């Protein structure tokens, strides 16, 4: 009796999740595993009928190939700079836009727009800003400053990060939602105790926003490690162009190996290594969260 009831529960559960599950299995899980299988072969895109198993050779190449390690290093650097700063900017903007100021909706739209603009247009726009006689250098010229080769070797990564930070308003919606969720009585209590606005921010707002920051941090890390189109288009014109070396990020390397040089097996191995790296980082952040993320309920994620 109990058995049938339980079975029924299971059946109902799986029936309800089945639309998602079926799509995930066929378009998610199967391709993933198939990709994993191919990363152990010498697949080049056209040799399906002559596929050879090559063991861990592609994975060995990932770690022995100085380029992939260089690219991974640069990617981690960009992530390490981009993510914290964009978190800070995102939160700062949200706090400002949570105030009762004139033209609020206009400001909110303005800061959110970068997240809606297609990435290709964004890059093209910044290319004009950064180029030799571009907007930024013209401004420098007016201010009697030396022009800077923004897209050159020394500043290319800076330029890339500035461009990425332009999109920091992307977390605005969720940040605002988080801010609205902070009970007003906490602020009132703080005011009665005579807390300054800065004090209020650090003792009320920030602790109650940590779960939002935590979410943004994970999404930011994942997104940042997967950047590839921005560096390519910042110095090139087509997807197969090489970005300038300091902006040669990990996914650019993988994309080039697959689509420019038909090294599908190696490219897929690169992707799986990245997947594992992201997984590890995420686990690490999750682990760390118990020390700094505050939940009003005692429940952990």
């Amino acid at each position, binding site marked *: 009796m109990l058995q049938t009831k339980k079975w029924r529960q299971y059946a109902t559960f799986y029936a309800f999740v089945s639309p998602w599950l079926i799509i995930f299995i066929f*378009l*998610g899980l*199967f*391709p*993933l595993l*198939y*990709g994993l299988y*191919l990363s152990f072969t*010498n*697949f*080049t*895109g*056209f*040799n*399906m*009928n*002559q596929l*050879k198993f090559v063991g861990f050779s592609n994975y060995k190449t990932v770690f022995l190939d100085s380029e992939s390690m260089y690219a991974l290093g640069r990617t981690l650097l960009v992530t390490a700079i981009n993510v914290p700063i964009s978190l800070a900017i995102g939160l700062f903007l949200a706090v400002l836009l949570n105030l009762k100021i004139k033209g609020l909706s206009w400001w909110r739209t303005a800061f959110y727009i970068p997240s809606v603009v297609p990435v290709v247009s964004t890059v093209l726009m910044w*290319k*004009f800003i*950064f*180029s*030799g*006689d*571009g907007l930024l250098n013209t401004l420098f010229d007016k201010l009697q400053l030396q022009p800077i*080769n*923004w*897209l*050159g*070797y020394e500043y290319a990564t800076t330029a890339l990060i500035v461009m990425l930070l332009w999109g920091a308003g992307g977390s605005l919606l969720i940040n605002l939602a988080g801010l609205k969720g902070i009970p007003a009585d906490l602020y009132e209590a703080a005011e009665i105790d005579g807390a300054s606005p800065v004090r209020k921010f650090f003792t009320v707002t920030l602790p109650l926003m940590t779960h939002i920051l935590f*979410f943004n941090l*994970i*999404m930011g890390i*994942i*997104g940042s490690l*997967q950047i590839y189109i921005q560096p390519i288009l910042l*110095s090139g*014109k087509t997807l*197969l*162009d*090489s970005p*300038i*070396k300091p902006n*040669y990020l990990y996914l650019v390397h993988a994309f*080039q190996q*697959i*689509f*420019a*040089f*038909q*090294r*599908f097996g*190696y490219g*897929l191995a690169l*992707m799986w290594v990245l*997947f594992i790296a*992201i*997984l590890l980082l*995420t686990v690490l952040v999750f682990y760390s969260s118990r020390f700094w993320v505050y939940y009003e309920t005692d429940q952990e994620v």
Partner: protein
Amino acid sequence: MKKRILTSLAAIIATCVLITGCGASSGNGNVNQGGKTAEEPTTAPKTNEPVTIRVALSKGEVSDDEVKEFETNNPGIKITLEEIDQQKLAAQLATNDAPDLIRAQGAVDLTSYVVKGLAMDLTPFMQTSQVLKEDDFLSPVNLYRFDGKVQGQGPIYGMPKDWSPDFTIFYNKTLFDAAGVKVPDSKEPLTWNELMELAKKLTLTEDGKVKQYGLALLGKTQADFPSIMLEMASKGVNVFSEDMKTADFTKPEVKEAVSMWVDAVKKNLGKNDVNQDPAAWGGDLFMNNKAAMIMAGYWFSGMIRGDEKMKTHLDDFGMLAAPIAENGERVSPTGAATGFIINKNTEHPEQAWKVFEYIMAGTPAKNRATGGWGVPALKSLLPLMPQVTDFDKRVYNQLQEELKYSNGFLESNPFLLNGQTLLDKYVTPVYFGKADLDEALKELTKNANLIIQENMNAIQ
């Protein structure tokens, strides 16, 4: 939250799966229908149902009017034009869902299509064709011949729709005057060194800003793969070994050629990675009077002819011979020879061939020839090329000169596509003084060989 990475990863892998899933089916497909070439009767249905032939091309290469004309004259065949996208095409080829006619470049990817077994041998069709006859072919048609070892020999897999000797140089006399430099004689080709010297004189700066560049390439005025191969052809130096198994970019001749381009970047002769000029391409600079010369094929005369501002003073423009190496042989080959191949797995070879013939010798071919956007592949169409204005005649006459030296081909390797991507990767740091040229060329050679080897092993 891991979903996002999962989905994006899945998207990429899904592409691969498409390709592989298809690879498998195309493998089987080969067994079932691989033999279906010209000799066999087509499997086309005998009913009156029209057959659809899909053509992958770049926008505007065949017009809707031309399609209509063909369909009126061939009621059994419908043409669908599809804009070509290399990544999509790779997936289509693997799933056996590729278009019947595929845009290819004789000098770039033809051999790669052949070694991968994707191009149909058109020799039997050519032998019986009423409109495409071998003695009417200009030499670049041979770029579509490949016997598995040497390009230019063996079965024919397609042909160029049009082509140009791609390394000729167009000049803008107004900018020569501004620099107080005389336009060189077009009869004798310049050597690369002379060209660079000239470009240096033509590059003018004002208050530290470039007023005009000396030399534009289609892309950037820096190490350019085809131009380097051109210089090697003129010197008679091979980069790839005869068995195509290895590449050697460390040869002193290659180094000399690349360092010339490194120098061109230092002297700021055109748009490059260091100055990051925002112009979309070299043609933009030339068309806006910002570059005195541009290295481009005959087709570029179509740009000048069609430009509202340039049209009014065509006397200021002309074409110079392709440059040669110091003491080198005079060569003026094509760097592209864009045309079509027929998909080996097409279900309608006869009908596909009809469309092929129409594009190569019918109205589209005539329209291309009269438009002056390239040199036709057929001798019989040459007289249609524009020869109205003095500019037309000047360019046409120079072209006739170049054609005498256009029989040779640039070296290519079927297992190494996108040489430019690789070259840029290693040489760009040299422009910034961040890497040593010898080291860069060594790395380039090492990685090129790795790619060649992997791609070669994959199909053997």
